[in-house]
């Protein structure tokens, strides 16, 4: 990594902020940051974006999801594939062919 070049810093920024760079690389990186305010601004905002991205919420499962899938599993275990298919269809949870009867 060329410590005097901004493009080299920006290219390796993820490795630095993820703690995956070597000690020598980190030293060179922070030396560059101490003399380059443009890279400092980029890094500060890059880190802010990364932190906020980690706060994006995951989805909630529908209330009956486990119930329906559990019945499908039970039918599967019994080898009643036709029954599984009709159960899924009756629950409105199957569109097209189910995986287990695909060729």
């Amino acid at each position, binding site marked *: 990594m060329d410590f005097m070049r901004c493009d080299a810093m920006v290219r390796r920024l993820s490795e630095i902020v993820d703690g995956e760079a070597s000690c020598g690389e980190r030293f060179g990186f922070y030396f560059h940051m101490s003399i380059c305010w443009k890279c400092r601004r980029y890094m500060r905002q890059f880190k802010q974006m990364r932190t906020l991205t980690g706060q994006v919420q*995951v989805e909630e499962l529908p209330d009956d999801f486990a119930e329906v899938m559990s019945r*499908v599993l039970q039918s599967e275990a019994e080898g009643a594939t036709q029954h599984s298919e009709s159960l899924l269809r009756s629950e409105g949870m199957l569109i097209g062919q189910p*995986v287990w009867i695909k060729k």
Partner: protein
Amino acid sequence: MVDAGTLMLTEETLVEGLREGKNWAFREVLNRYGPALLGYAKRLVGDRDEAEEVVQDAIVAILHHIERFEGRCSIRSWLFRIVHHKAIDHLRRTSRFVKAPDQEPYAESFETGGHWKDTPASWGRNPESQADARKMLELIRDLIEQLPNNYKEIIMLREIYQMDTQEICNVLEVSSVHARVMLHRARQALYKLLEQALQEPVESLM
């Protein structure tokens, strides 16, 4: 019947339970990983109903192929890998799979000598302020949807599901070098979208 004790279940016990077709094991997998798998599928295919369909397909496939799980990666990585394949198949079937161009998003931002051509724009916001942070969070959530599929996916795995590089490699079946390069390009692409969005008047973010 295992109930309260499921909190203490190890991965090995869980896999064993699935292999034996135990209902408690299935429910535990859904409780532990279901919301994450659904969120992952939804952001990949872009639609809640389609995402539920993808997750259902994946769960059926998981139950069919549980014997193939060798424990070389975590069960979470394995579940995400299956949802990844199902979601990509779904996107390809519906001609919606978009792959990022093979170049760095910031390649043209530097002079020949490697210095910035233009100063990176200041976002002019203070993420310490709750109001600014909330607006930016909503904006980032929307902008992630605009990323090409492979960028969107790796951003989710790392930032939202907090996977390390090795786990990402297990899910996407790529090398660690490839994963690192792709993750950085994805972050840069998201940064670029955010930079453009923040140049718009503040009112548009209200």
